[in-house]
C-alpha cells in the first residue's frame, strides 16, 4: 500500500523531477519497477492461501467437490465478467492518460469504480446467503446439507481468500478514486505525466488477476 501511495504522491503537480533522480524517465522507471516488485509481494501473499487450498484439496477431495458445487456458479461468472470488464476500462484510462484526455480518464475510472462496486454488491449477496444457510468457516459451520470431513476447511479457505481479495478490491478502488478525482479536477495527466494512472491501473489488474485464479479454483474445478 505504501509504495502505491508514495508513487501517487511522487508525481503530484506537473511532471516534477525529485531532486535525487537523474531524469524524469529514470524516475518513472523507478516508480514502475517499485510497483512491479510490490505486485510480486501481493502475489506471494495470495500464494500462501493457494498452497493451503492445494494441500487441503488433496487431503479432502470429496469435501472440495461438494463445497465447490454449493457455490453459486451463475453469480460467480457474472462477477468474473464484471471484474474483467473493469480491468478493460482501467487499461483504457491509461491509454487516454497518455494522450492527455483527462475527461476520458476520469470517465473510464468512474466506470471501473461502478463495476468494482457491483462486484462487491454481488459478493455481499453471496456472503449473505452463506451466513443464512450456515456454510461458514471452522466452528461457525452449521449447514446440515453437507456433513463430511474437511468441509469446514473448504469454507475457511473460501472466506479467507475471497475476503482478502475483497480487501484488495477496496484498496484498489481507493487508489483509482484518487486518480479519478485528479483527472476531473486538476486535469494534469498527459504524455509525460501518467505514472499515477498507470500504477493504479496495474494494481487493478492484479486485483483482477487474483480473481481470475480464485474463480476457477473455488467455483469451477
Amino acid at each position: 500500500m505504501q509504495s502505491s501511495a508514495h508513487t501517487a504522491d511522487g508525481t503530484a503537480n506537473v511532471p516534477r523531477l525529485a531532486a535525487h533522480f537523474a531524469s524524469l524517465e529514470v524516475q518513472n522507471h523507478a516508480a514502475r519497477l517499485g510497483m512491479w516488485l510490490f505486485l510480486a509481494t501481493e502475489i506471494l501473499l495470495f500464494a500462501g492461501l493457494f498452497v493451503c487450498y492445494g494441500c487441503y484439496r488433496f487431503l479432502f477431495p470429496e469435501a472440495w467437490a461438494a463445497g465447490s458445487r454449493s457455490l453459486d456458479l451463475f453469480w460467480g461468472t457474472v462477477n468474473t465478467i464484471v471484474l474483467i470488464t473493469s480491468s478493460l476500462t482501467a487499461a483504457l484510462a491509461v491509454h487516454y492518460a497518455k494522450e492527455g484526455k483527462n475527461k476520458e480518464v476520469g470517465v473510464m475510472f468512474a466506470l471501473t469504480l461502478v463495476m468494482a462496486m457491483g462486484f462487491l454488491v454481488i459478493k455481499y449477496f453471496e456472503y449473505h446467503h452463506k451466513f443464512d444457510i450456515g456454510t461458514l468457516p471452522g466452528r461457525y459451520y452449521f449447514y446440515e446439507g453437507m456433513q463430511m470431513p474437511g468441509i469446514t476447511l473448504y469454507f475457511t479457505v473460501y472466506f479467507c481468500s475471497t475476503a482478502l481479495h475483497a480487501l484488495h478490491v477496496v484498496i484498489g478502488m481507493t487508489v483509482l478514486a484518487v486518480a479519478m478525482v485528479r483527472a476531473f479536477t486538476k486535469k494534469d495527466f498527459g504524455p509525460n505525466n501518467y505514472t499515477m494512472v498507470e500504477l493504479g491501473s496495474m494494481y487493478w489488474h492484479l486485483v483482477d488477476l487474483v480473481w481470475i485464479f480464485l474463480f476457477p479454483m473455488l467455483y469451477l474445478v
Partner: protein
Amino acid sequence: MTPSSSLDTAGAAPHDEHHDHHPSYLVDGTTIKSWLLTVDHKRIGVMFLFFILLFFLVGGIFALLIRVELLTPGPTIMDAMTYNRTFTLHGLVMIFLFMIPAIPAVFGNFMLPLMLGAKDVAFPRLNLASFYIYLTGAVFMLWGMLNGGLDTGWTFYTPYSTHTTTTVAPVMFGAFIIGFSSIATGINFIVTCHTMRAPGITWFKMPLFVWAIYATSCIQVLATPVIGLLTVLVAVENLFSFGMFDPARGGDPVLFQHLFWFYSHPAVYIMVLPAFGVMSEVVSTYSRKNIFGYRAVAYSSLGIAFVGFFAWGHHMFVSGQSTFDAGVFGVLTMLVGVFTAIKVFNWVGTVYKGAVEFSTPFAYFCGFLFFTVFGGMTGIALGTVSLDVPWHDTYFVVAHFHFIMVGATIMAFLASLHYWFPKMFGKTYHEGWGLVSAALIILGFNATFIPQFLVGNNGMPRRYYDYPERFQALNVASTAGASLLAFGFLIIAFYLTYALVFGEASGKNPWRSKGYEWVSESPPPTHNFVGPQVTFPEEPHFYVDPKKAEVPDAV
C-alpha cells in the same frame, strides 16, 4: 578538488570550499521535527540505529534473565510461565526487531546511496514510512508481550499458538506490520540498485556490500508476504477458531510449519547475508587489497538467496516429512554451505599477503570467520538427517544458530558500527578499548555457546525450564560466558557514547579505505555529494600493491 581524487588525500581533515554552504546531515536542521519528518536516508538510518540498539538492549536483558534462571535446576528467579514468556520475548525481539532490520535498515540505508554515488534512495518517503511502520509494529508487539505475553516461542507453532490463552493476536499483528516495513525497505533498495547507480558504476563495479543488500532485499520482498499472511491466519485462528491449522477440524499443523519455514528459513539469510556484505568491505579495507574473486563473492550472495528458498524442510525432519523430502532438503541445505564456503575462501584469500591493519573491525572479522566456519560446519551436520534426529530441539541447535546466525550477524553489526562510525558521525573512538571489548565479546560468545553445544549433545532439550543436576556445570559455564558478553557490550556502549560526545574529529577517511562510501565527506552533507556528478573511475577497494600501501602517500 573532485571527490574521487580527494580519496588520495585520505586522512586529511575535511576541507571543501563548499563546506560552509553544505553542512553535514547531522547539523542540517537541528529541530526534532527536522529529524522525525526527514526523508534523508542518512537520518533515517541513524534513527533506525537508535531504536535497533534499544531493542537489542531489551532482547539482551531478557537473554540474561534466561541465563540466570537456568543457573540452577528448578526455579531460580522466575516461575515456569514467566520463563516461557521470557524466551519468547527474547526470540521475537532479537529476530524481528533487531537482527532482521539491523544491518539493512541502519547501514544499508546509510551506505547504499553513498556507495552508488546517489543522492538518496529511490523512494525517500517510503523509506521514512518504513521506519514508522517498524515502530508501530514494535509497539504492538511489545504491548502484547507486556500485557499477557506470548508463551509459544518465536516460532508460534500451531496448534499450541491457536489455543494458548496468552496474547497471540497483538504480537502476530505486530509481526505482520513489521513485515511491511521489511518489504518496503527491500523494494526501495532493489529499485535503488537498478535505477540510482552513478554513471560508471556498472553492476560489477557495485561494492560487495551493495550486492549483499541486493540479495537480501530479494529475499525480503519474496519471502515476507508469506509470513505476513501466516501471522494473520494464526491471529484469526486464535481469535475465531476458523480451523485452518486445527487438526480437530481437519487442518494440518505441518502445513503451518511448511509456510512458516518458507519465510523463516530465508529470513536467516536476511540476517546473515548483509553480515557477509559488511565483511567483504571490512576485509578489503583492513587488508588493503581488493577482494579476491569479486564475482564469486557477488554471485554467491545471489546463490545463497536462491538456494535459501529451497532448504526450509530441514527444520521439519522430525515433523512427519517423507524420507525422500528429508533427503532432498538435506542436500539443498548443503548447497548453502557450498556458497558460504566460496565466500570464506575468498575472504581468506583477500587477507593472504595483504597489509593487515589489526584494528577493531578486523578483530570482529576474525571472530566472524570463526563463528561462520564453526557454526556453518555444525549446520552441515544438522542438515544431515541421521544426525539431526537425535539433536533436534536440543541445545545443540540453539548453540548452532546462535553461532552462525547471531554470532556472524553481531560480529558484522559491531564491525560495521566501528568501521562506519567515523563515516556516520565524523568522530573517532578509542582503539584500545575497541580491541578489548572485541576480545571480551568473542571470548564471551564462545564461553556462552560452546557449553550449550556440549549440553545439547548430552541431551538437554531447548526451551525447558528445569533440567537434571548433571547438566548444571555446563549451564553455569554458559551463564558465566553470557555475563562476559554483557560486560563487553557495556564497554562498547560507554566508549562509543563518549566518542560521540567528546571524540576527536575523524577526518574524511581515517581508514584510508577505497570503498565508494568514503568518496563523500564524513559525515556527508545532506545530499551526499556537493558539486558536479561524482565519477568512480576505479573499481571499489582498488589498492595498489599492499606493501607500498602501508605507507599512506606511496600511491
